[in-house]
């Protein structure tokens, strides 16, 4: 379908909202992942994720059909064409083709001192061969694995990146840059990748000082990995993304001691390089909203659950808010109910700007929502969201 909006119009919506101006209408950034787009187009995740042609075909059909502000589809996270060649134990394909993330520990409980002495050396010497089985192979097979991973990814992502840009131009979608890199909260890195969710929580009680030292050692790495080569010139289009994992599993007391200080330091370190900040506060952050006031101005904060009125009141003056619209409204109930809910969220969150419409979570699977509702629902957001 031909959109009534131009790319220039949509670009300006995001430029305005991310610089604190009230845009012409609320921009929308609904997350529909590459896996959902592939399944919508009738492809099987068990095979289609190994190449780019089916992804591009699905992406082109999807974006011609649905009038989202942004291009949807493409690979988002771990893709099997590279996790296979390195023998990843942390990202494995489930029986239905969807990638799963098992709770694997790359570091043992008696290895803190080695890690703290030189984290990067420890990661290469110890963690990587444990977590990625192909890197434990003797020379030259381990070198082949690294080369295959890098070059396969360059090849596939190069095709997908060009196709995504074409989709944006052909369908009047956003063409301005919106990303600038990714980083992580140091404690999340520690838990996700080194000690596992369960190991991290146990160590926090049994050896708190070692955990704090480890998190402190990770902090400069998280600042560095946020696209260290780029010298940003525009915070609204060069933004570093953080997805936050552990806080909602912690008491506020533990969060204050183990999680928040290093995250705050990382965010300020990245911000001081000139980047804008985009944060997905996963799960329910209502207990910790006040801490977000300590971050630099105009972070884009995406929330999953919570009370939109309280979020708007507590963080909506300093930061840009997005998300919280319950995805289930696109799966269950009528279109009218889904649109009524859109209006309810817009009435609360849109006044004064600093709001990007988004759902509480991305659509990951083809069967997850009723696709017949999507275009009229998008039209409701775009029309009712006019300032």
């Amino acid at each position, binding site marked *: 379908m031909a959109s009534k909006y131009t790319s220039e119009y949509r670009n300006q919506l995001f430029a305005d909202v991310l610089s604190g101006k009230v845009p012409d209408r609320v921009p929308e950034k609904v997350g529909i992942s590459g896996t959902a787009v592939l399944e919508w187009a009738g492809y099987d995740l068990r095979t289609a994720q190994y190449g780019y042609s089916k992804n591009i075909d699905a992406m082109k059909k999807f974006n011609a059909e649905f009038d989202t502000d942004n291009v949807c589809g493409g690979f988002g*996270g*771990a893709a099997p064409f*590279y996790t296979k060649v*390195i023998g990843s134990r*942390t*990202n494995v394909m489930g029986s239905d083709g969807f990638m799963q993330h098992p709770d694997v520990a790359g570091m043992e409980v008696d290895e803190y001192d080695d890690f703290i002495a*030189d*984290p*990067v*050396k420890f*990661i*290469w010497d110890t963690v*990587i061969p444990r977590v*990625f089985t192909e890197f434990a192979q003797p020379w030259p097979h381990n070198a082949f694995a690294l080369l295959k*991973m*890098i070059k396969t*990814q360059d090849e596939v992502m190069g095709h997908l990146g060009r196709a995504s840009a074409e989709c944006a131009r052909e369908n009047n979608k956003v063409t301005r840059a919106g990303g600038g890199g*990714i980083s992580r909260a140091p404690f999340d*890195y520690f838990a*996700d*990748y080194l000690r596992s969710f369960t190991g991290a929580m146990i160590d926090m009680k049994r050896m708190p000082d070692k955990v704090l030292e480890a998190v*402190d*050692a990770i*902090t*400069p*790495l*998280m*600042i*560095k*990995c946020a*696209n*260290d*080569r780029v010298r940003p010139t525009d915070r609204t289009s060069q933004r570093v993304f953080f997805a936050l994992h552990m806080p909602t599993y912690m008491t506020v007391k533990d969060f204050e001691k183990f999680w928040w200080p290093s995250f705050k*330091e*990382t965010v300020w*370190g990245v911000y001081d390089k000139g980047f804008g900040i985009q944060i997905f506060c996963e799960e329910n952050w209502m207990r910790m909203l006040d801490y977000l006031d300590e971050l630099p101005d105009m972070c884009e904060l995406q929330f999953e659950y919570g009370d939109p009125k309280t979020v708007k009141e507590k963080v909506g003056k300093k930061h840009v808010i997005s998300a919280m619209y319950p995805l289930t409204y696109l799966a269950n109930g009528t279109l009218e109910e889904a649109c009524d809910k859109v209006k309810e969220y817009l009435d609360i969150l849109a006044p004064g700007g600093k709001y990007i419409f988004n759902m509480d979570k991305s659509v990951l699977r083809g069967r997850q929502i009723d696709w017949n509702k999507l275009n009229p629902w998008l039209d409701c957001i775009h029309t009712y969201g006019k300032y």
Partner: protein
Amino acid sequence: MAKEFKSAYYLTNEQLIEKYDIDPAAIEDIDESMGWMEDYLMTLTLTKLSN
């Protein structure tokens, strides 16, 4: 204040000059190639290979 990033597996431009016996006058030039690669390898280590 965060500690400075440092590792035996990350070479600064000065260390690259020394390790590979390169004319020190090339320090700005190697930043565009070998120095870029050091940063690329670190980013790869801390993102794709830390996932």
